[in-house]
């Protein structure tokens, strides 16, 4: 059966039943990691499963890869706008109406508007465009690793995996270096506001509201600046972009920038951390990569599949429809569980095996269809550089204490991962 590893804590044998299964509570993810045993059970017994939970609206849990693909590829039948993901309130927290904190960005837009906004930046995120950033990503990664020289223990998350993605996106947006720590804090608060460690104010919503306001203020100034003096960074491109012949409306512009700041940080960070954890737990795979650096591309795909940092997004039906024989009514929502698709027995041989040579690897870590991750090539490049450098320089690594997980059922995260390591100097 499933390997019982730290990366797969959900694989603990547990009595499961449809009445008691919990794939929603953020606390469950914090304590046990991804509920892989629960998802496996649902894939087998109830792949389209109606979930009711006291702290969120009801939804249908979709756990099979084929169903997620079918739904994602029909963006006019299944909308993103009405419900972006299944967000769960903190105990005792009151839900706010969506108008209270408006955001309008790629992820919650639908066709045809969505395509117009996506086209503005898609050419900046193709493999070729992103490839041009490789020297910069390598420089940032080398710098981050060099800071670990002369020591034997560190928190891999805060000192390595969190630092690279924020630096890369900050560079792309043209955010000056002294402001990087602020960007870092905002992403933590916007994605991880449900976790006490990142909470400011009374509850997750207040934390989010505060961070959102600060991001908006920050970029309002930058946009003004870039309109007066355009440069070639992404902020400048958006600040001066036209939608239907007119400048982009302010809410759309600031939301676009906010999503760029947050979408690639927590996610790439967790792929990196989870990737190293998988290497520590499967030392033969790390040895394989060290012996054959040509495996880096397939290793990165496997890390994306294995870690699946985005847990879920939702879609809402515009008309009555059927998924795998289950009737779903107009207005009802479905929740697409990407990590479950990435362990789907119908798609992958030995899905619970971490195999850096896996081929083919049609995983859904970056989603599929209309909203397919805009930054996937950037994320792949970052992971390639980080694991290429780690394979070259990390002579040994082991856990030096317990890992702690993010309290979130939206983006999965390891907050801290103490490691004991031996690192060799950079070679040129």
């Amino acid at each position, binding site marked *: 059966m499933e390997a019982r590893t730290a990366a797969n804590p959900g694989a603990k044998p547990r009595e499961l039943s449809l009445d008691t299964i919990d794939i929603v509570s953020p606390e469950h993810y914090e304590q046990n990691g991804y509920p892989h045993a629960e998802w496996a059970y649902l894939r087998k017994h109830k792949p389209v499963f109606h979930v009711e939970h006291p702290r969120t609206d009801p939804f249908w849990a979709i756990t099979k890869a084929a169903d997620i*693909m079918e739904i994602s590829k029909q963006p006019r039948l299944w909308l993103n706008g009405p419900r972006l993901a299944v967000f769960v309130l903190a105990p005792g927290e009151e839900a706010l109406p969506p108008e209270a904190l408006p955001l309008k960005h790629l992820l919650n837009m639908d066709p045809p508007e969505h395509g117009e906004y996506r086209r503005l930046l898609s050419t900046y995120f193709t493999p070729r465009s992103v490839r041009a950033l490789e020297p910069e990503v390598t420089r940032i990664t080398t710098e981050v690793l060099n800071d670990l020289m002369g020591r034997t223990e560190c928190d891999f998350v805060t000192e390595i995996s969190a630092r690279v993605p924020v630096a890369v996106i900050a560079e792309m947006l043209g955010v000056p270096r002294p402001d990087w720590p602020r960007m870092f804090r905002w992403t933590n608060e916007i994605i991880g506001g449900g976790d006490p460690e990142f909470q400011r104010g009374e509850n997750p919503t207040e934390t989010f509201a505060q961070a959102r306001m600060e991001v908006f203020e920050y970029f309002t100034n930058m946009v003004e600046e870039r309109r007066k003096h355009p440069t070639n960074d992404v902020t400048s491109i958006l600040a001066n972009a036209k939608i239907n012949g007119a400048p982009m409306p302010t809410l759309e512009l600031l939301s676009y920038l906010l999503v760029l700041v947050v979408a690639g940080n927590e996610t790439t960070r967790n792929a990196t951390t989870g990737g190293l954890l998988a290497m520590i737990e499967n030392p033969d795979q790390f040895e394989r990569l060290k012996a054959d650096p040509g495996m880096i591309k397939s290793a990165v795909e496997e890390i994306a599949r294995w870690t699946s940092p985005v847990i879920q997004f939702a879609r809402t039906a515009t008309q009555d429809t059927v998924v795998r024989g289950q009737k779903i009514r107009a207005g009802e929502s479905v929740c697409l569980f990407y990590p479950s698709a990435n362990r789907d027995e119908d798609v992958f041989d030995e899905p619970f095996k971490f195999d850096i040579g896996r081929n083919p690897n049609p995983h859904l870590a970056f*989603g599929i269809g209309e909203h397919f991750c805009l930054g996937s090539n950037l994320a792949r490049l970052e992971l390639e550089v980080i694991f290429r450098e780690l394979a070259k320089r990390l002579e040994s690594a082991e856990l030096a204490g317990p890992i702690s997980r993010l309290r979130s059922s939206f983006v999965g995260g390891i907050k801290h991962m103490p490691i004991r390591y031996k690192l060799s100097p950079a070679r040129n």
Partner: protein
Amino acid sequence: MKIEIDLKLCEGNERCVAAAPEVFEVRDDQAHLRIENPPDSLIEKVKLAVRMCPRQAISLREK
């Protein structure tokens, strides 16, 4: 089997190349066919490319 790529949809993500390098290549950020009529031995890989293309830019037609 005839393969068509809708270049208006293609974003050059290269997932097709990952699935079937014998058949697809990406030049100037757009996918192109290396061979127009792939042999039967490659059909499975082409079908995988169709499934993996995040933009649904590839279609297959029986000839």
